[in-house]
């Protein structure tokens, strides 16, 4: 065993101890990685002045990877009961017999990179009484109902919080733990005028209870719904499209899939083989930096227990790198970039982004500034069918959209039931403006207003 790194967070000692103990059951000739997690959550939904539902829950689970002779097996269980620990290890061990031997299959080992500490835990959250949370959800609902005479329904007003702790221990020397709290308010409203109805959603997120802002969530939801009233099917044609900050996070999320070292190695990325080439507009610089504490996806360690780090992916339009975990890195002949992510104890790690941002445009490029610079075009505030109309392998892009026309550099009449289409490759080259209005939204990417030239609108 190589030297263990001490990367544990206080408060999680018992979880680390548990993971330690299970990893200690490894036999000669096998490598074992034990991931244990537990969490508590509260969710309150308010409707029509009453609590529609109140959920309180705790959960815990374990995921174990075993490698024997370059063969990987995985097993998980939704419990940390003593009886399931050994059983889960046995299952993972058995499963390893069936995988194809692959020299690149290996667990992460300490790589000497120091983690940048980020504080993601709000000590105060555990002490907030449920009654206060209920009160906040009810207040949010009341606020939304009273905010504008055109709001005829508030179909969901939610408060939620989560506390999550995890520990990771491996026989290859990884020993890390993380803990994180988060809270959110989320509200969905329906605005009506005559026969027409439109919907809008808004939210406010934070590390805990304090700092959640019902006014912001409401205002966002109400503005989005009300300004769409009277929307008609827009005209077809070529147009510059401005994506608002929320939509921009979705776009960057799609692009990030093609930057995965695994997708590249397996010939499923349009970025494969293009390192050093111009893949974007010269103004496009894209960085993934989970060490930025402002990022929603900030983290000290990745999902294999390596330190997260800043990775430059596209620099002034030139493709500079991909994101790797240990296995995909080995396949490409490079080290992990500390970019392993996993979906909880029931999933295995793979490379992915946590905190993407684009280098911001010039000062004054907030939403209004970008609209003024664009002059004429379409402003998109919501997209549908991203999973059904965007092919991240071929790059074909076609989504349903709602928004407003841009005329004389300002928002004009609302439009709905249109699609916006192009290819991801062309969109990156046509990214003509990036907002300086960076807002860290609950996503793997920051929100920044974006303008993309020459997209096809399908409508009337």
């Amino acid at each position, binding site marked *: 065993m190589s030297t263990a790194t001490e990367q544990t967070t206080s408060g999680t000692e018992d979880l680390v101890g548990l993971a330690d103990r299970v990893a200690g059951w490894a036999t000669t000739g096998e490598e074992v990685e034990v991931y244990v997690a537990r969490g508590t959550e509260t969710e309150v939904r308010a409707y029509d002045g009453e609590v529609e539902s109140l959920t309180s829950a705790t959960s815990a689970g374990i995921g174990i990877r075993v490698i024997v002779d370059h063969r990987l097996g995985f097993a998980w269980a939704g419990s940390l009961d003593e009886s399931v620990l050994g059983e889960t290890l046995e299952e993972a061990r058995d499963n390893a017999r069936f995988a194809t031997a692959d020299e690149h299959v290996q667990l992460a080992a300490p790589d000497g990179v120091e983690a940048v500490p980020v504080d993601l835990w709000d000590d105060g959250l555990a002490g907030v009484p449920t009654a206060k949370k209920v009160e906040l959800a009810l207040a949010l609902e009341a606020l939304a109902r009273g905010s504008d005479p055109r709001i005829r329904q508030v179909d969901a007003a939610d408060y939620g919080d989560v506390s999550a702790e995890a520990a990771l221990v491996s026989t290859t020397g990884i020993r890390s733990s993380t803990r994180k709290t988060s809270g959110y308010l989320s509200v969905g409203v329906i605005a009506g005028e005559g026969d027409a109805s439109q919907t809008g959603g808004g939210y406010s997120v934070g590390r805990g209870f304090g700092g959640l802002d019902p006014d912001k969530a409401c205002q966002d939801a109400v503005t989005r719904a009300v300004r769409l009233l009277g929307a008609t099917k827009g005209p077809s044609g070529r147009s510059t499209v401005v994506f608002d900050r929320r939509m921009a996070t979705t776009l960057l999320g799609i692009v990030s899939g093609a930057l995965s070292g695994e997708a590249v190695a397996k010939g499923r990325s349009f970025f494969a083989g293009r390192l050093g080439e111009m893949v974007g507009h010269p103004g496009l610089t894209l960085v993934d930096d989970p060490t930025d504490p402002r990022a929603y996806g900030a983290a000290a360690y990745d999902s294999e227990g390596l330190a997260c780090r800043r990775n430059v992916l596209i620099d002034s339009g030139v493709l500079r790198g991909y994101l790797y975990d240990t296995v995909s890195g080995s396949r490409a002949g490079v080290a992990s970039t500390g970019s392993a992510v996993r979906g909880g104890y029931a999933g295995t790690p793979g490379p992915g982004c946590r905190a993407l941002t684009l280098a911001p445009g010039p000062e004054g490029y907030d939403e209004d500034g970008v609209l003024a610079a664009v002059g004429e075009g379409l402003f998109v505030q919501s997209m549908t069918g991203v999973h059904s109309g965007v092919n991240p392998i*071929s790059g074909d892009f076609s989504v349903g959209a709602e928004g407003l026309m841009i005329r004389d550099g300002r928002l004009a009449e609302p439009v709905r039931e249109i699609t916006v289409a192009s290819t991801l490759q062309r969109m990156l080259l046509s990214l003509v403006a990036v907002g300086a209005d960076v807002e860290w939204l609950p996503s793997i990417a920051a929100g920044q207003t974006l303008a993309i030239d020459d997209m096809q609108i399908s409508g009337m």
Partner: protein
Amino acid sequence: MIDTPVLERVLAEALRNGGEFAEVFAEDRSNTSSMLDDGRVEELSTGRERGAGIRVVMGETTGFAHTADLSEQGLLRAAEAASAVTRSGEGSRSVAVGRLTGSGTGAGRPVHATGTKDDALELLRRADEAARHSGAAVSQVQAGFGTSRRRVLIANSDGLLAGDEQSRTRFSVSCVALGDTGMQTGHETAARTLGFELFDEVSVEDLARTAAAQALAKLNARPAPSGELPVVLAGGSGGILFHEACGHGLEADHIVKDASVYTGKIGQRVASPMVTLVDDGTVGSEWGTFAVDDEGRPAQRNVLIQDGILTDYLWDYLRARKEGRVSSGNGRRQSYRDLPMVRMTNTFLLPGEDDAEEIVAQTPRGVYVAKLGGGQVNTTTGDFVFGMTMAYLIEDGKITEPLRDANLIGNGPEILKRIDAVASDFSMTPGTCGKDGQSVPVGCGQATMRLTGVTIGGTAE
């Protein structure tokens, strides 16, 4: 899973603070999945999870708690947490549950065969080989196998005790083809509420070849049109249209909140007279089939639209109770960690009498959609999209050139009136339906049909 006297004590504890209704939903689920990618079996994964969700209803309010601890002590703790929301009230009530109903009684559905891990891997290898032999341009193949067995037990303070054992098995193949114009993809899935017997009915080689053929065909695809054209939807995946264009809008939770374009439209014409739409959780081994729903109510057949006239919505326990009627067997949840919601099961358009080939022949210009990949709807406005993953141009009544992927967009109530032909070649397709963060397996189906006009979101002007 849990003894009846324990269930009764837990329900009584849940009602201790004055709740009107209490329910225990217990679940024990095991999953096995494996993936072959890039020519290698990358991993075989197994998982097990068991736990219970307890809800207490008082007035308009539901309290909910879940636990992975199925001991009496663990359940009592969860019951106490769930009942906290009714703390203002008081009362004590004993609860007696009746005899077990559903397939958990041992009657009903057959015991499902389980394949060994070796058998699953053999299927993956066969699929990989078949796909790679479909053409030299096939550059990547991913084949996935997953099977789950889910036992559920539901007891409530109305005296209901029901159980079900649900096996589900799916197999999917995704291919990438590489040509001069870049990469294209093809994807096929077979999924049934069966164990390993799925493979008595489904050839993994056929699935693989179909997926590969899609990717290969699309290498020569031209950009999809932009604008409105007649569209012919091939039988099967075209059912996604009805799932999105009206299925979600008929879910009673949207209706009671006046968040659906179909609110207040019972008895009214909402679709072409060719449309008779059914949601039926009892159909054979389709992906949305079960014996009892996640509230213990038997699955049933519900006619939603009859000859174009809206006849009913879909109901779960809570929304039905409010209207003084019974649930339609549509209360479903992703797992014991989730509250049930109104969900579709297998939703399909009854077949018509037209001939599929004739429908194409009588379409001078339009788009033929051989496969839809998914969709999304805003139930309040009725605006929805659905994505075509294999489509062709129709020119002079003939299917001609393949088209690149794009979404189609429309408004539910408008589109349903534009159906002017429905054939008799009915088939079903499996899917995963997401709503409010919960995913459940569903089936969709229809026969080949034509829409007189839909906006196609391509890039070709």
